[in-house]
């Protein structure tokens, strides 16, 4: 323990350290303006969204790994026939990502009316997607295939259901954006907040789009 008390010449400091340092009025932390700085405020929504999506990813990873383990754990695996309507719903969901991207760009160009229109288009497409998913469920139940029929059907209902719940959350987000789209925003903070929440919802929506394509491929290629 002697070494820690021996006197040695100070080592020149590189960057901020935990240890001593001359006062640095500006430091090198964040901008540090808390709620005051519009840029930092906007980033909060984007960071929060990516962090949240990390946890969504983990949940679907766990369900996927269960799917893969279960598909090889016994010989009771009966692959479902793919309901054709899912192709149509996939197209609708991709289209909704495109319309939402349009909406986001209109907002950036400060065209709020156009922005609201594209938002409505996205919501309609999203609702249509959910309707088609429900239709696919009805088709399967009409054929006598239920959640407990066999493992592949269990996973089909579970994964499509979990995705639909998450997508419905996205629809709520879109609805929130649409309700706010009519508000007049002049201040930098308000503008930045509106853009950032639109960005966050868009990130989420695109993610749900990609997640659906992944689940679709998993369910009907890995069977």
């Amino acid at each position, binding site marked *: 323990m002697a070494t*820690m*008390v*021996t*006197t*040695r*010449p*100070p*080592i*020149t*400091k*590189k*960057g*901020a*350290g*935990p*240890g*001593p*340092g*001359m*006062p*640095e*009025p500006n*430091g090198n*932390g*964040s901008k*540090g*303006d*808390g*709620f005051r700085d519009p840029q*930092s405020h906007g*980033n*909060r929504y984007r*960071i*929060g969204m990516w*962090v*949240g999506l*990390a*946890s*969504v*990813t*983990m*949940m*679907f990873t*766990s*369900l996927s*790994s*269960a799917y893969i*383990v*279960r598909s090889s*754990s*016994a*010989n*009771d695996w009966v692959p479902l026939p793919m309901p054709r309507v899912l192709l149509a719903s996939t197209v609708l969901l991709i289209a909704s990502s495109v319309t939402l991207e349009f909406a986001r760009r209109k907002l950036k160009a400060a065209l709020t009316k156009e922005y609201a229109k594209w938002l409505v288009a996205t919501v309609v497409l999203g609702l249509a997607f959910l309707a088609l998913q429900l239709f696919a469920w009805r088709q399967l139940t009409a054929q006598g295939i239920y*959640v*407990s029929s*066999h*493992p592949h059907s*269990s996973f089909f209902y*579970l994964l499509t259901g979990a995705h639909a719940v998450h997508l419905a959350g996205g629809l709520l987000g879109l609805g929130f954006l649409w309700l706010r789209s009519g508000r007049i925003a002049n201040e930098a*903070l308000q503008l930045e907040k509106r853009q950032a929440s639109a960005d966050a919802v868009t990130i989420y929506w695109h993610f749900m789009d990609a997640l659906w394509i992944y689940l679709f491929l998993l369910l009907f290629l890995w069977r």
Partner: protein
Amino acid sequence: MSETHEGVHRHPAPTGFIRKYIFSLDHKVIGIQYILLALAAVAVGMVMSLLMRLNLSWPGTSWPILETLFPTGAPGGIMTPEFYLSLVTMHGTIMVFFVLTTAPQGGFGNYFLPIQIGAEDMAFPVLNMMSFWVTFVGFIVILMAIVVEGNQAIGAWFANLGPSFAGGSGTVGPIGGWTGYAPLSALGKIAGPGQGGGMNLWVISIAIFCVGSLLGALNFITTLLNMRTKGMSLMRMPLTCWAWFTTAVLALLSFPVLLGGGILLLLDRIAGTSFFIPGGLYVSGLLSGSNPNFPLHTGGSPILWQHLFWFFGHPEVYIAILPGMGATSHILATFARKPVFGYRAMVFAIFAIGLLGFLVWGHHMFISGMSPYSAVAFSILTLSIGVPSAVKTFNWLGTLWNSRIRFTTAMLFALGFVSLFVAGGITGLVLGQSSLDLAMHDSYFVTAHFHLVMGVASIFGMFAATYFWFPKMFGRLMSEGIGRIHFWITFIGVYAIFVPMHVMGIRGMPRRFSSFAEYDFLRNVDPLVLLVSVAAVLTIAVQLLFYFNFFWSIFKGEKAGDNPWEATTLEWNTTSPPPHDNFAGVLPTVYHGPYEFAVPGAPKDFVMQTDIEAEVPSGNGHNGHH
């Protein structure tokens, strides 16, 4: 300043009682709500452990109050085996989820992370409020399991929700241990008492808890990344913030996996799926598929549940202990009046523990029937996780060396944490070896190990945090006199409870037995069992002092100033308790590292992080004094 002040508030200080204290958006109120929730939950969990010890050491004794409360679970006041096993399950679940995951992170983290990084609040106050109330609902649901299983009438009523919800087993909840291994947990009422509605509520409660924790974790991470004040670089953050941040990352990535597993388990129970239930089962005289009470199951994998559970479950033990480590480092430095020894190494150790924590879940499953080859990898990775843990211990000792210690109650508990963390953690070297786990698995050696390290050490971290931050939270000091009595008896008590348990485990005593009377080879540990029970009764009794001290001091404690401990970090830079926006409109600017004690030449023996006047010698933090 008042001009910016107006613009600062995203949510102005509320005035009504409900918005101020119930559905509050203020991270400080939410933090206290979490702490109160944990205090309620830990009382329930402790009473359950008391009942378990009474049953183990005085099995024939009648406890009339038990019969009054649970006429079928404790006929004649003597508890049934299933009653005991439901106590085991509920004690574990309530302690792990609603105590060890709420108080350290949701409680102290919520209150102090924003203040310590110099922010007005969490990044998403509404999410923060939701995360508490979702967790609260989870707690109510787990308490409902007690009445659903314990009360015939309510249990029968719950059957209206579906056959799998029928309760009334005369227990205080489900039977499955906190790990709820399938297929016992998946089969439903047919598998015996405690497998009905209580188990459904158990799964639902945990799923709800997962959601609440995820909302909290998201908030912690965003707040720390986005809202540090001017000058608060990452390496100037208090170690508590690093611990809360890493804990939040662990929670963010592990709770979704448990949530996924919980959904699968619930579907097996209520929808007749076969994720975890294999084919050809014959339970309670019935073959799967031969009877409407026992639908056909095929091909599920019981081990899959264990993988999903422990992928969450192992990080969970670090979720419980990391905040305690952070608080201990913080409090040791403050009362040793000395900078934290090896701050960087401490940060790396926290990271290494967090990362390795995701790679070692298989050590809970050595003898589960998984591939014996994977056990080799899990075993070596598990012993590696001891290295950063040892590094932390060395650095704590390094912090104390050549220091000038002030023995407050908070410091005593922080020192107790170090002692207990070593005592509990080091037996991981035994259990982490797949060879030695062959005999130690599911024995009292395991019970002793995890209670000391993730249970008692974490709780000591929280006691230290409570005595330390109480004056900041309530503006008054807790009684040091009562605090010391609380410390001495608890410290000696927990050693007396848990050290003998190791020896019982070496002898071969298995966990989760309601009685050991059947086994001749365990006769010689009977005196130790009695010793443990007596120590447990005394230690639990002395916790009443803590409850008294806590609530009495809120109203009658000695008034504390803004900085009663002469500490350096930002929470001591504001009033006690802090105003609604933490810093009365002016965010602090940070000029120094978090633990500048005993700076040569400084007028006082501590330099606050905001002290622009102080000159701190330059250096990389690794050279000696001048």
